[in-house]
């Protein structure tokens, strides 16, 4: 957020904090006080410049033909970030939206995303920072480069990059263009106006297109961004209106190139196989059965993978299935346990009173609970979850004359490049990485384990490009899963229906810090966790820890509402804050909460903050005679502070709801002796058209700080649906997925 005047700078505290950040990253990075916001520009021009275009800033080129190219350090896999970020820059620039294009930033240090560091530090460490302080720009650039920050995750593109890079960049570029015009025409700067990529000097009637002034603008020394005002929301002409996404037209004719689609001269195809126990090591494998099969040219072995290289995918996969590799899992804890056993251990861990870390604490929960007369406790469980992104992994790699070229998908291409260089034992200058279209990320593609076998295959076939692709089975059984967790919730209400005590004890905390917050002003509160009980490889899953806390907390809040004899909406309204009330009231409106639902249906409601946005959701369900649920409708009201592209945010909420509903209805990853059982969509089902609910999405723009859009739709689906089931049948569900239960009787169904 822009602030008046200077920031309240406290050098010693800030330096300590930055030092801590840097030290935590394990880096030897000098404190770059002298680095300006524009020091990356010379290199950026080298790497991403174009002949008939002027690169005014690292993030912006303007062409002689008036094209405006916004360079965005984020991948867009359909979540609309690139379009929204371009909108924010174009708005401040006063560009003609019809001329705007987006380009993904190359995986080069000049394009490390310092905005992410500034937002992280601003929100978490030192809230009074001025976003545009020059020294902070320098430091955040150094840190971003040091940790290879070019991550698309955490619903942060708009609230970090948009707020802290795109907007100031647009304002800066507009200043540069106006300054160029003022100099050219010999008139004062403040007499130059802009609109739709045209500069004008009303007093004399002179005008110029941005393309005409871009070259001159690129030669001017940019001002300190903190001196530049940003547009008030009332002046917006691009932001806040639905703009069509720039990436869509290509996606309707089969033409987008995912790594799977690359066809290079002489390219070979690789199939990969890893130990059924994740992270198991390869001991030996006789390659003969594969080599004997048609089209196969090589069997490549690495520490943990086998790759069979052939002249097409089908033959490679047939051949790899004929092998009988020997694996070693001696060092692996996960090989000696099962998901059922892990659940037992977690369930025991939430009883008892020692060794917890505290997330949030206030008052005296113990004493209040002991004294309370209307109290309850319940134990909840959620299983492991897979990302099951639509595209199983594929990477193309070519190792030629000491240079490695990679065509990948990655949620952090800069980090992928450095990680690949390290694995290949090459200096990073000898690695070129192209980030291709991605068939779904959801957090899984922020790690790079699936790129490594392609590097092995390329090294074993010098000069030849090799495409290594994964079967769905290999992908699903070698995931990075959302953790399973057990939670014990305890609470008490007084006669007026106020929650007077709330204790939430859960296993396996990862991220985000606010995920386990309880938004009802509870005076006697303790949220605590115990870690280290999850032996299965973990990864960021859409909405991360919010995905389980939504279910734990908002289901239990509903139980408390019932214990208090109150309507679940009124119960929440009486105790949440102003932003919570606004979204709850609006979602009640759009869902007709105050009118009876159709016969045989009931509704459930929830409230959750995630990634800086406040979300309320209502689900409307029915349950048939066999005890199976049908979710007819989901209503969502989100307050993200500011809405950039309404149509796109709606699509993200709807998609996130379907993502959360798949998990709620069907999702469970189980394992035995370290081997994941679920291998394909046949064992791990998804919501399809017929069970996708009707959805209505509405917005409240509180004007508070900008929140995220990609993930906040997911956490509330499970509690909204389960709260609705309780309202309908009286059955309180405390574990997922729902397909495991008869929702009329509450009984667990026989093994599937």
């Amino acid at each position, binding site marked *: 957020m822009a602030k008046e005047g200077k920031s309240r700078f406290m050098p010693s505290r800030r330096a300590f904090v930055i030092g801590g950040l840097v030290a935590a990253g394990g880096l030897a990075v000098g404190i770059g006080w002298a680095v300006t916001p524009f020091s990356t520009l010379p290199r950026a021009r080298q790497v991403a410049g174009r002949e008939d275009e002027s690169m005014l800033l690292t993030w912006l080129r303007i062409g002689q033909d008036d094209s405006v190219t916004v360079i965005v350090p984020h991948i867009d896999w359909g979540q609309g970030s690139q379009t929204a970020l371009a909108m924010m820059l174009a708005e401040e620039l006063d560009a003609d939206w019809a001329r705007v294009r987006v380009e993904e930033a190359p995986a080069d240090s000049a394009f490390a995303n310092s905005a992410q560091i500034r937002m992280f530090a601003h929100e978490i460490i030192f809230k009074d920072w001025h976003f545009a302080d020059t020294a902070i720009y320098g430091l955040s650039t150094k840190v971003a480069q040091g940790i290879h920050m070019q991550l698309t995750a955490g619903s942060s593109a708009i609230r970090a990059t948009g707020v802290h890079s795109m907007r100031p960049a647009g304002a800066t570029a507009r200043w540069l263009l106006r300054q160029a015009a003022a100099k050219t025409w010999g008139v004062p700067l403040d007499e130059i106006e802009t609109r739709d990529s045209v500069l004008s000097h009303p007093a004399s009637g002179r005008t110029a297109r941005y393309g005409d002034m871009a070259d001159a603008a690129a030669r001017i020394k940019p001002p300190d961004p903190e001196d530049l005002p940003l547009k008030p929301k009332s002046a917006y002409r691009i932001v806040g209106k639905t703009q069509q996404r720039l990436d869509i037209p290509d996606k309707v004719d089969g033409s987008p190139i995912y790594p799977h689609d690359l066809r290079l001269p002489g390219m070979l195809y690789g199939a990969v196989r890893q130990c059924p126990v994740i992270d198991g090591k390869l001991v030996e494998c006789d390659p003969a059965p594969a080599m004997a099969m048609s089209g196969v040219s090589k069997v490549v072995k690495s520490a943990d993978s086998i790759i069979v290289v052939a002249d097409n995918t089908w033959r490679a996969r047939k051949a790899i299935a004929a092998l009988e590799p020997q694996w070693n899992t001696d060092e692996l804890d996960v090989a000696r346990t099962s998901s059922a056993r892990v659940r037992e251990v977690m369930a025991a861990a939430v009883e008892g009173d020692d060794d917890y870390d505290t997330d949030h604490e206030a008052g005296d929960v113990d004493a209040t609970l002991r004294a309370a007369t209307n109290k309850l406790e319940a134990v909840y469980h959620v299983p492991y979850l897979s990302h099951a992104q639509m595209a199983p992994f594929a990477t193309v790699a070519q190792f030629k004359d000491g240079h490695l070229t990679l065509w990948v998908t990655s949620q952090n291409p800069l980090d992928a490049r450095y990680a690949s260089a390290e694995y290949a034992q090459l200096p990073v200058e000898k690695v070129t990485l192209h980030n291709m279209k991605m068939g779904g990320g959801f957090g899984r593609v922020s790690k790079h384990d699936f790129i490594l076998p392609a590097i092995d295959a390329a090294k074993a076939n010098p000069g030849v490009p090799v495409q290594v692709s994964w079967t769905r089975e290999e992908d699903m059984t070698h995931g990075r899963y959302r953790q399973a967790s057990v939670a014990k919730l305890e609470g008490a209400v007084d006669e007026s229906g106020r929650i007077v005590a709330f204790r939430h004890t859960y296993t396996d905390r990862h991220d985000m810090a606010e995920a386990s917050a309880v938004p009802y002003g509870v005076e006697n509160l303790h949220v605590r966790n115990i870690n280290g009980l999850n032996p299965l490889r973990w990864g960021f899953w859409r909405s991360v820890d919010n995905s389980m806390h939504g279910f734990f907390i908002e289901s239990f809040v509903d139980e408390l509402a019932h214990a208090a004899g109150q309507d679940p909406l009124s119960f929440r309204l009486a105790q949440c804050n102003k932003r919570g009330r606004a979204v709850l009231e609006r979602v009640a409106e759009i869902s007709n909460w105050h009118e009876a639902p159709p016969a045989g249906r009931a509704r459930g409601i929830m409230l959750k903050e995630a990634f800086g946005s406040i979300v309320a959701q209502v689900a409307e369900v029915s349950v048939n005679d066999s005890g199976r649920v049908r979710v007819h409708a989901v209503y969502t009201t989100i307050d993200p502070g500011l809405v950039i592209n309404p149509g796109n945010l709606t699509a993200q909420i709807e*998609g996130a709801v379907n993502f959360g509903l798949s998990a709620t209805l069907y999702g469970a990853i189980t394992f035995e002796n370290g081997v994941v059982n679920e291998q394909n969509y046949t064992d791990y089902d998804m919501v399809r*058209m017929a069970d996708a609910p009707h959805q209505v999405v509405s917005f409240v723009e509180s004007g508070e700080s900008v929140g995220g859009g990609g993930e906040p739709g997911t956490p509330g689906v499970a509690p909204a649906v389960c709260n609705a089931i309780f309202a309908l049948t009286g059955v309180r569900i405390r574990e997922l997925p729902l397909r495991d239960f008869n929702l009329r009787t509450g009984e667990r169904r026989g093994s599937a």
Partner: protein
Amino acid sequence: MIAITINGKQHSLDTEEDMPLLWVLRDVLNLTGSRYGCGVGACGACTVLIDGRATRSCVMPVGAVGEGRVETIESLKQGEVLHKVQEAWIAEQAPQCGYCQSGQIMAAVALLRENPQPSDEDIDATMTNICRCGSYQQIRAAIHRAAGE
């Protein structure tokens, strides 16, 4: 040698009969618009039309296609002119990551040829493809739009 007709063009292929049509399209003919999602016919990302019927090409051995006329996503656009389903898809902003969309569009083309004014129940029954990004509401709207409803 296997004789097969793809998008109106005849091919004579020297491949094994049990190679699924999907891999013939992708790796032999370099028609990469039809995609691999599961390999077991469960997700529909590989959907093509054979004699107008939506078919999951990952479980269709190329040897079993015979004289069936195969149409893939690549056949819909005529030069630069989009098929009305493709136009509807853009107008409703249906694709997110795009990976499932070739299959979704082909399934929708088959539906609309058979049933030019599908009801929501018709759409539920025939559009069984998975979209992990969850853009079902936009896909449904696009089908209604293409049907002129």
